[in-house]
Each structure stands twice: as C-alpha cells, then as structure tokens.
C-alpha cells in the first residue's frame, strides 16, 4: 500500500509545483491580444485569398483594429453585412465598396475561333503564354488551360468543356481578383455588379487590326468604332483597335449592342430584347453537371 501512496504523493506534489510555475509564467509573460481581432477573424471567410491586399484574413483583421481609419480596408469576399459587423466591432465607419464581379472578356469558343494548331506543352496558361501565340489565330484570347480555375478559392470559376472557356459563377464570385492576376493574357476584369447584376462589356481583348482579328475569330472586336459613335455617355473608348466600355460611365442603354457588327459586345442579365445569349443562365447549369460527373468519374 505504502509504495502506491508515496508515488501518488510525489507525483501530486510535482504536479502542484509545476502548475504554480506555469500559472506564474503565464501571468507574467501574457501577450495582450485585442479580443476584437479574434472576433473579426471569426466572421471573415477565412479563405486567405489576398483580395484585400493583405497576406491573409488574420492580417486583415489585425489591420482593421490597429490602423487609424478603415480607409482602404475592405474584404471583397465578404458581404456588406460582414463589413458592417466589423465596423460595429471596431467602432469605426467602413467604406462602402461597389460590389464587383469577375468578367471573362473572351468569347473565342471552338466554333467562333477555329483551332489552327495544337499546343501539347505543360498544361498551364502561364507556360503556354510564354512559349507560343496560342492554338488559334488570336494571340490575345483565352488559352484554355484553366489557371484561373486553379487559383480560385471560392469554386466560382469553371471551364466549360463545350466552349473551352472559363465561366464565372456570379453567385459565388467574390471579386477577390486572384483570377485577374493569374490570367497571363489579362482577359478577366472586375466590373461593377450594377442593379440587378446587369452588365454590358466588350467580350474581346484582341488588339490586332480588323481583318486579322476577324480572320482569327468570328466574334472578335475589329475596332470599327461604331459603338463609340453611338454611345451617348462617352463610355466607350477605342484604343489599339479595341473598344472598351467604362463601367463607371455606362448607363446600360444597350445601344452599342445593336450597333456591333461582330456581336462582340455582351449584355448580361437583361430581359430578352432580342436573341442575345445571356451568359449566366446558359453557362452555370451544364458546368455544374460536368463537374459532378467529373467527380463521379474520379
């Protein structure tokens, strides 16, 4: 009986001493953390996408608490409610940002843009863009290797196997801008969401002269400038044979769409006025199916 009692006693005393030491040390060297940082981290999405310009969500939360003002601090991946909550925690007003969404400005599907070559190198856009002009006659458009899909942390962009182009899931896209940086051709752009998610944009980035662009792709912008003339709001500019619609100035009147001889201007989420393929509905359904099928196959 005695050895057992001694053992328990000895261990008990050691435990007690160590416990006291730990307590003292923990008290003495305690790091003062602002509980608000923890609170903010809790409500942030936690994807560490870097869309705010800071390295990860924890850094963002710390900046929210430590900086003097909330100016320039905004989590693109969170809704405005989350930002309001953060404002409540920090006690400072947050800057409201216009909600944005990623837009793929290339419509060079296999039909529109016939393949004239076959690229068989490493299947990454960065590498393809470095080695060659691409599989088609258009040296500006989508390469189709899906770097944007790989980098997306929100599962919001997918390749459509039919068109060979990436398509953005508007519900999931948070406009963090990672895909914009990943695209070596600079096709993806963040544009204002506008009312009812309506958007008008030139779905082309080809800077070649008209005949060259047209030969390469049936829906390429040929830089004819008709849209520039018809626009009443000075929203469209023509540079290097390519039209660009400034989303800050565009009033969504849709005049340019009727004018474009190449059908390269797209209107998304408008009620049907004439036969315009609205990107969103058409796109998302088949992609989801194919993704699920891929999963099953794997």
């Amino acid at each position, binding site marked *: 009986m005695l050895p057992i009692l001694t053992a328990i006693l000895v261990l008990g005393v050691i435990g007690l001493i160590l416990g006291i030491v730990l307590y003292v040390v923990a008290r003495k060297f305690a790091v003062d953390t602002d509980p608000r940082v923890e609170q903010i981290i809790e409500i942030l999405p936690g994807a560490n996408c870097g869309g705010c310009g800071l390295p990860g969500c924890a850094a963002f939360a710390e900046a929210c608490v430590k900086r003097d003002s909330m100016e320039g601090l905004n989590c693109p991946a969170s809704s405005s409610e989350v930002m309001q909550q953060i404002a409540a925690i920090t006690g400072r007003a947050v800057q409201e940002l216009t909600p944005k969404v990623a837009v793929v400005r290339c419509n060079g599907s296999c039909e529109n843009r016939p393949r004239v*070559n076959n690229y068989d*190198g*490493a299947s990454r856009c960065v*590498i393809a863009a470095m*080695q060659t*002009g691409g599989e088609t006659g258009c040296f500006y458009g989508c390469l189709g290797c899906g770097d944007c899909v790989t980098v997306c942390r929100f599962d919001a962009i997918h390749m459509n196997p039919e068109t060979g182009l990436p398509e953005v899931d508007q519900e999931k896209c948070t406009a963090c801008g990672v895909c914009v940086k990943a695209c070596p051709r600079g096709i993806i752009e963040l544009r204002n969401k506008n009312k009812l998610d309506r958007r008008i944009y030139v779905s082309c980035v080809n800077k070649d002269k008209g005949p*060259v662009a047209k030969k390469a792709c049936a829906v390429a912008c040929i830089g004819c400038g008709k849209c520039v003339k018809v626009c009443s709001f000075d929203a469209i500019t023509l540079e290097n044979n390519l039209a660009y619609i400034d989303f800050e100035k565009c009033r969504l009147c849709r005049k340019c769409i009727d004018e474009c001889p190449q059908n390269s201007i797209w209107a998304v989420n408008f009620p049907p006025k004439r036969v315009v393929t609205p990107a969103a509905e058409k796109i998302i359904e088949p992609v989801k199916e194919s993704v699920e099928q891929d999963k099953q196959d794997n």
Partner: protein
Amino acid sequence: MLKTFKIGGVHPEPNKISAGKKIVTAALPKQAVFPLSQHIGAPAVPCVQRGDTVLVGTRIADPVGFVSAAIHSSVSGKVAKIDTVVDTSGFRKPAIFIDVEGDKWESDIDRSDTLILQCTISQQEIFDRIKNAGIVGLGGACFPTHVKLMPPKDCKIDTLIINAAECEPFLTADHRLMLEYPDQIIVGIRIMLKALGIEYAVIGIEENKPDAIALMRAKTSMVSGIEVVPLKMKYPQGGEKQLIEAVTGRRVPPPPALPASVGCVVQNIGTVFAVYEAVQKRKPLIERIVTVTGKSVQNPSNLKVRLGTPISQLIEAAGGLPEDTSKIVSGGPMMGRPLLGTDVPVVKGTSGILMIPESDAVRHKERTCIRCGKCITACPMGLEPYLLAVASEMEDWERAEENWIMSCIECGCCQSTCPSRRPLLDWVRLAKNRVNDIIRARNTKI
C-alpha cells in the same frame, strides 16, 4: 582520347540524313518578309517606306543601340507594306514585306566566286563592316557579332573558338559549309583574329564529321595559329560554355560572367563565313544555309536561302510536306521551336526546318517526379532541374535564383531524359523569365 565537356550531356540519335547532300541555291520567293526582331537586343527600326524600291543588299532597317543589328533586303523589288507577321518565335511581330521584282544587286557587292585572301583594312574598319552587314551569331541565338568582337576592356582574350560542333541532331548546314567553302572559312577566321587582335584560333568539330575534320586539317596545316580539335559526340557540345570547356578545359563562372572572362570568344562557323562575305565581298547578311530535313521527308536537303523566304517554299523544294508530319520545327529537335504555320519567313537564326512525323512528336503524359536524379546527371551546367521546376511551380522565384537558375542554357537535356516525362524545361523557362525580370528590376532600382 577525344575531348569533350565533363559534366552532363545526353546522346540523342544523330540522324544526320542530309549530310551527303550538296548545298543547293533555293529559288527566289515572290514576296520576302523581314521581321524586325531577328536578333537578341532591341528590334531594328525600318528605314524604308511603303512603295520604296530596294535592291538586293539595301539596308531596310537600322539597329537601335549597341546590342542590335541592321537588316538588309535579300531581294530586289518594292516595299509592299510594314505590317505584322507570325515569326519563328510563335508570336506576331512587326515586319517589312517586299514584293520581288527581278534580281538587281547593290553595285558595291562583289558577286564573283573568286577567293580574296588578303585583308588589308584596319581593325576598326573590319568591325564597322561587320556591324553594317547586320551579322549576328548564326548558330541560333542570334547575338550581334560586332558586340562579341568587342569584349569588355578588363578581359584579356587569347583564344578564338570556332563552333563547328553542330551537336543538334538532323542539322547539317555547318557540316556542308565546311566541306564546300573551307578556304573562305579560313580567311574569315583570320579576319576575326585580326579584329580581336589575337593569334590563336581553334575549330571544334564533333567526331561524326570525319570528312570535315580531315579537310579542315589539310587546309589549316599551311596556316599558323589555327588548330582543328576533334570532339567526342555529345549534346550540347555546341553550347558556348560547353565548347569552351571541351576545347580549353576552362570553366566559365556563372552569369553575369561572360565567356570573355576566361579569355575566349566563341563564334559559329556560319558566322565566320558571313564575316568573310561581309568584309571581303561587302555582302551583307542576306543569305544563309538551311537544312530542310525529317525522317519521312522525300528529299532532305541543304539549301542556300535568301532571308525572308517563306518556309513553305523550302518544304516544297525538299519534296513537299510528308503526310504524316505533325510538327514543323525551326532549328533542331532539341532546342528548336515548333512553328505555327508554313508562312513563317526564314530569319537570320533559322538553321534548319525539321518535319517530325506523328509517331515521334508525341508528348507523353506527365507523371510525378520519382526523384531518380537523371535530370541532375544530364544537366551540362550542373544544376538540379527537378528542384528548379518545383520552385517554379510553387512560384518560389527566390529559391530558383539561389539555385542558379540563370545558369540554365535551356538545352533540354533534363526534359529529354526524364522518365516521368515532366515538362522540366517549360517550368525552368518560366522561372528564368521571372527571375530575369526580378534581377533587372533590382538593378534599375539601385
């Protein structure tokens, strides 16, 4: 014991099908196209306008800055337009288009075949003539030759190495050049020696060209200061640093050190011939020898081609495009670039046109790295390609730089030897580009 470089290297099938074929002059094209960027350095700027009449040898584009080269018309006719063209790099770049009318030459060019042995002009004049002729390294890298002949002041040059290794499989242009124009080459070497102010030159030739070795030996036996060194067959023997090591045993330190830092200047044998023509005959760089070959090509040949000729015409001259062709490569199979079409014009750096049949052009499925280390054994620069590829994949440019990525010569030994068929070179090239940008940004800041 034949000489060669010590570390790395691979032994691809030589496939020198066209070695026995004499050089044939190709027909004039209907329209010649001259991309403005045919060399390393700043693109040239056109000095002709649409509608101008040009003769063979007329300068059509001026160099910009020191590292750049002039471009001359290889045909006579009218400038049709200055537009963009898809060139051998695989991108659309600005170029001058000339519609061919007749074949009238500039009057000061000596078109006769007579060999001019004596070169009495001064060092500076040789330098100027080479520069004005727009000569670049014809081995493929296209570095302006006049820059190479003016090594930095603090480097003492003692050896001129003539690169006639032609280690790329299939290519035979340099081989034929040696067999058919040996005297001109010897004169060319002497001109270069004079320009550099040195007395000793070595011609490095791989052992698979015994006839060229014998001929060049016979021709140089009477000339002092020029030696022929037969080399063991190994790719990439024709790499500048590999050749220096093979011939002299000296090792060039990693970049930014130049071959000049170990006292060597390396020139391709094709460049030597171009220098002869430019200095002795006042003929600018308007022609070059191109090997048109491939396993299923009907009539593999070595053609003397005017620059700017569309490649389709060369393929026609070699018996047409074989039906089973799945890739057309400009250059050799190891370092060449696949072409996007046959409308691409011949440029200064086009050493060969290779048509690869479908069975050989397959890229196998990429598998995971098994850490076998074959790429390390094969790398002639002593690098670790697998590590560089991983660093590139992880976008860890710092690590790539620390592991000497800038020493990579992009020879492709690693990729060709990888049992997992990993696209090592693709990744390394990407990282090299990025690291180069980073280094440049760093240097401009300071």
